[in-house]
């Protein structure tokens, strides 16, 4: 049975401050009562992940991890959300691992597939940057060496 998951674009669309505040208040209230329902926790975590602030995203992923640990039945969905969270944070390696685990469980999931592609694209982009840097560093190093050797041979 396919799980209902949001597309990655949904994660880029953040909630308004007020909405997030309401979710946070709800979560705090349940914390004070010493029993937090999974739905409230998820609502707050999802709101945090959608936010553009890095600290919020980290907190959101942490809450999602709590849900993952606590609720075995919800783990499959959480895999996706964790992958999405890590993707937004920039931890592409972790995102990839969660996403591939999800795809093992549910190969036909469209959102998982699209997320996988997104992650790969981002990784490739970073790879290009890395290559460029490596090339640049190598070039600089080569020039320096050439200069040293020339100086040596001259003398």
């Amino acid at each position, binding site marked *: *049975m396919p*799980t*209902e*998951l*949001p597309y990655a674009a949904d994660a880029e669309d953040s909630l308004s401050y007020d*909405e997030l505040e*309401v*979710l946070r208040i709800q979560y705090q209230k349940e914390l004070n009562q010493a*029993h937090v*329902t*999974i*739905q*409230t926790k*998820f*609502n707050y975590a999802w709101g945090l992940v959608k936010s553009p602030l890095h*600290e919020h995203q*980290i*907190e959101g992923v*942490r809450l999602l*991890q709590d849900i*993952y*640990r606590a*609720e*075995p*039945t*919800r*783990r*499959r*969905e*959480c*895999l996706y*959300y*964790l992958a999405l969270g890590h993707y937004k*944070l*920039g931890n*592409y*390696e*972790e995102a990839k*691992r*969660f996403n*591939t*685990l999800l795809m*093992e*469980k549910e190969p036909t999931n469209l959102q998982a597939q699209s997320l996988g592609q997104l992650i*790969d694209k981002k*990784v*490739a982009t*970073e*790879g*290009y*940057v*890395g*290559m*460029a*840097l*490596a*090339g640049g560093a*190598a070039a600089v190093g080569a020039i320096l*060496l*050439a200069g040293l050797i020339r100086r040596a041979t001259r003398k």
Partner: protein
Amino acid sequence: MASHRTSADSRSSTRSSQGRQHHHDPAPPATGPSKLELMQKVFSPFNHKKSDSTRILSDLAPVIMTPRMMNSAAEVSSRPRHSLANPTLARSAMDFATFGRTPFRFGLGSRRITSGELQVVEATEELLDAEVPEPEGVAADVSLLRGFKATIPSADQSRSRRRQMRNVDTPKLGLKKHGMSARGLLTEEEDHDNQSVASEEDMVVIPHQKKKRGRESLSTAKRLGKEELTRQVSEILRDKENLHVRRSLVNGEITEITHKIRALDDVRQKLEQDLLKLQEDELELDDELEGVKERMRFEEAISSQHPELNSSLHLPPSSRRRKGPAFLPSEHSELPPGVAFMTLESHTTPITALDFSEPYGTLVSASEEDAQPRVWDLLAGVEIGRLRGHIGAVKCLQVEDHVCLTGGEDGNVRLWDLRRVEDDEEYKRREMDSIPEVILEEDENTDDGELVERPNGIRDGASESKEPEGPCARVLEGHSRGVTALYFEDECLVTGASDKTLRQWDLTTGQCVMTMDILWAISHPASSSTFGDPYNMSSSFHAPNPAASSAYAMYDDFVGGVQFWGYGLVSGSGDGAVRMWDMRTGQAHRTLLGHTGPVTCLQFDEMHIATGSLDKTLRLWDLRTGGIVETMQLDHPVTSLQFDTRKIVAACGDNGAKIFNRTTSQQSVLLTNGHTKPVERLRYMDKYLVTGGRDATVKIWSL
């Protein structure tokens, strides 16, 4: 540069071209493999596995491929958890990506890596290892996202929007003012600017205007339009779905909470049981403390007294009231609890009485129709002798250290010195060998202090009563019928007999000090001190209770048990009454009624009296008030019991002794290697229990 090509080959070829150009001019390609080997050797501590990509990279660009890079590359490749479509590609991509990310991390972005982020990243390993089961129950019905959409506050917006659509503009009605004054709140004076304070005529004019508008329904003023209405229909349907979602979420929560409550209840029960166990331990420690204190006193007394002093009857405090742990051989702790580890077989008829001096000491047991109680050595488990002297069966006995007192059907009480039993036996054996004839031999034997029973069974009555010898140190005569219960402590002995009297004796002189007549006490009850359920006293108390089991149909022992402390004596008798006597006056000052059958066994301590009777009940009485604390209904008559603060051990007709735990109210039966017929008598000290049964055996148990 080749930044636009995406294949691994091109990447590695790019690097190789760079590498070859600048760093490997002096090294011809032929030495590549050896270089690789060298590299592997050098970097082997860093690499767990060498995949293709890392080998190529390490081969071609050793300078760039620093050990750290090799490390991360090898790490990535050594965690092949998932079979990806293109593992090598992905991993090489990762290597570069790691490299490429560094400027972002440290330079371009001004982000700091917080502890939270690290925690998040480090936790992924453990999470990925956790099992991911199939979703079921609430999780299958309602996905998290669906729940999110249903429960966020904006979900309710459409309803309020629809409500607002139905707002009709009306002239100011001042409803808020009405509402607030209805609640008792002060309303502010409003809108006086609008109204001029001119005259009242102005005010009168307005109602006219209102009337003109007529009595139309508010709804006619508004037109919502078809589009709006259809939109509202779909919104309402969606809201209903959301409601359904929320309901299933709440139901799921309720079931989860119920489970948690059940689990917590289980934990609480276990904790309560632990509490009971602690209570029991505390009682045991209290007993131990008392025992140790007494021991301290005893040892002090022993060391301070002269060793030559005292008669043969000097004893440590009575074993009946001794508490706390006994002295046991160290091997005793290795015994499995609740198992009969020793069986003493010699009797041929059901055991009627038994007692022992101490664990692994000396045991004396008597059986039906047998005038000779047997003496056993419990360390070895062998019979060391017999007590000869009684004419009828021995019905009751008590052993304290080396002194044994027996009461028999002949109405006599004999006092035995158990130390002499062994000598007696040996002499007797020697005697038998040497002189087989039937001759009066008492003259020759008197100096040895031995009483020989003539093989033909004829006794000289005169010599008997004149000088009891051998292990028997004294004979106490006085009762006219069989002695069925006795208790002695220090120099004082109390016996109860079927002639319905209790006699108190002084053991040093051997004289009866007092006689207490139960019959007299029955017919002259102290009016203010009868307790329990009063019943018709004139009913025949000789006749056994019809409810008693058939085995006891002939039971007519009138006194089932006696015990005293100081000058307070408690007796249990065949009319079912438990009487408390004052030994100074010889009067029964209290009668506890409750049993409907003869009382067969009795014991008391500082707080309670425990009695067992043929009416199949075991009763616990409060010593001070005389009220019944507890009544235990059983399946068979109770023939013997002993109790302490934590347990009651009773012989209640089962083949095993029953142990009632007083703190946890649990029962257990000792059956392993047990008797084959009901247990008749029992006695325990600390962890050592001795039982005698109708199968004529005596078994020793470890508690």
